[in-house]
């Protein structure tokens, strides 16, 4: 039994449906699951390729899994999903009617498909799983994918779309503009700030400015001004860890008090219930009164305890001052490099993007969970 258990592997699958049939694929092949969005049709695509979508700047072909497998898929509904799968760098989207759940099943519950299914598309089937009378067909995406990644026709078509997009939109066309950027940068470095710069070059100049900015940070050790400012950084880190300790202590103090208030609330409930039953009414009431006045004292203690914010706030202000100092000196260096106004705007934008982007709120996380059938 022990030995048998050791060899037991768990398969993690994402279940979905196409044309009323249940399918599943290995979760590790899935990059993400997206709601249906407009698919850009293109001429001369192979039969099962519906078109392409733009996934954060990357053009990805979307295939109609239903027609690929010989099962007509349903209509586009609110549940329609595009599952993004991929191996290495290549990705494709797969259109499915709905994503249902994440399945965790023992490896050995995967059965060979019955031989009758070998007639259609069976080369894509990894096996079947039986669950409460339903049969889920587990697809082998690697084999399905090879069809498309080996199809040079489709990559050519996709490549052409990218090029067309670039021609329509000069800002995306980085390569052709490099000579012009170099000219502009050369003129600027010679002090000619009025050198004519096309509007569309600003985006690329912003990139260069960011690159220079990053390089300058690396140069801190050789640039004396910056080195002077960064001398203060160890000091800041000592201050910061003190703040961290102080806030931890203060939070524990506040929590001790709050826990007492919570316990007292239970006491109040207990005494009130006994008063309701009419047991020794005067005594119950005076108990409640005592507890309530004790709570009031504790609550005032909590308010006083919160004054730690004043002390930590002052220390944080000091550290902010240090950082601003470093920032100012860095900015001066950027100005010396001859990149001004528009570039600093670009920098601000990138910072804003950075602070806006990284974390999603609970509801966005819930949406991702929902796509995987957590509900």
């Amino acid at each position, binding site marked *: 039994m022990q030995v048998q*258990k*050791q060899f*037991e592997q*768990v398969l*993690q699958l994402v279940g979905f449906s196409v044309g009323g049939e249940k399918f599943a694929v290995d*979760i*590790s092949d899935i*990059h*993400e699951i997206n709601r249906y969005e407009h698919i850009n049709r293109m001429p001369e695509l192979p039969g099962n390729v519906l078109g392409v979508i733009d996934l954060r700047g990357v053009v990805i072909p979307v295939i109609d899994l239903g027609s690929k497998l010989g099962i007509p898929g349903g209509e586009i509904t609110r549940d329609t999903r595009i599952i993004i799968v991929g191996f290495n760098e290549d990705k494709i989207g797969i259109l499915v009617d709905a994503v249902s759940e*994440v399945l*965790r099943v023992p490896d050995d519950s995967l059965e060979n498909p019955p031989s009758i299914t070998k007639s259609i598309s069976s080369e894509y089937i990894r096996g079947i799983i039986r669950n409460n009378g339903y049969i889920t067909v587990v697809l082998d995406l690697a084999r399905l994918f090879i069809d498309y990644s080996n199809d040079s026709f489709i990559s050519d078509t996709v490549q052409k779309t990218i090029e067309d997009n670039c021609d329509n939109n000069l800002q995306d066309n980085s390569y052709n503009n490099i000579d012009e950027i170099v000219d502009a940068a050369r003129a600027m470095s010679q002090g000619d700030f009025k050198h004519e710069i096309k509007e569309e070059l600003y985006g690329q100049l912003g990139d260069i400015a960011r690159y220079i900015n990053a390089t300058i940070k690396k140069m801190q050790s050789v640039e004396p001004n910056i080195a002077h400012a960064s001398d203060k950084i160890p000091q800041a880190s000592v201050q910061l860890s003190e703040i961290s300790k102080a806030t*931890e202590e203060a*939070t*524990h103090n506040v*929590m001790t008090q*709050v*826990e007492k208030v*919570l316990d007292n609330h239970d006491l109040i409930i207990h005494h009130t219930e006994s008063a309701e039953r009419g047991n020794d009414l005067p005594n119950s009431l005076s108990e409640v009164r005592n507890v309530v006045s004790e709570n009031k004292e504790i609550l005032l203690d909590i308010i006083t305890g919160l004054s730690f914010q004043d002390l930590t706030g002052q220390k944080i202000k000091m550290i902010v001052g240090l950082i601003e100092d470093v920032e100012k000196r860095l900015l001066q260096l950027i100005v010396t490099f001859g990149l001004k106004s528009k570039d600093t705007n670009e920098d601000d934008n990138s910072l804003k993007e950075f602070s806006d982007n*990284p*974390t*999603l*709120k*609970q509801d*966005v*996380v819930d949406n*991702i*969970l929902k796509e*995987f059938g*957590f*509900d």
Partner: protein
Amino acid sequence: MLDFKIKVLVVDDFSTMRRILKNILKQIGYSDIEEAEDGNSALVRLRQGGYGLVVSDWNMPNMTGLDLLKAIRADNALNNMPVLMVTAEAKKENVMDAIKAGVNNYVVKPFTADVLKEKIEKIFDSR
């Protein structure tokens, strides 16, 4: 209905967050709650047995919550353990990684007692 008799393990490197979680879990109805300060010590405790739910932070020294989750799923004695991730890591790839590693649900910090309760209920509803 939640079974409040189970033993819950709260894993977070911040003592304050462990205490906050403990208090909220108590208000929800749990009374048997233990703490661990990183994935390593959590795993040692879990292997001693008797736990029915893990509530874990992601970003911790020594062993992260994600690695703890993977270790739990790779351990034959523990691989069915419900794991709720409570974390400030909320980028799409984080959530995807956690789902792929077999997380049972995911709460983003800062959170409310209601959200925590709702997610725990969902974990046990779907079992």
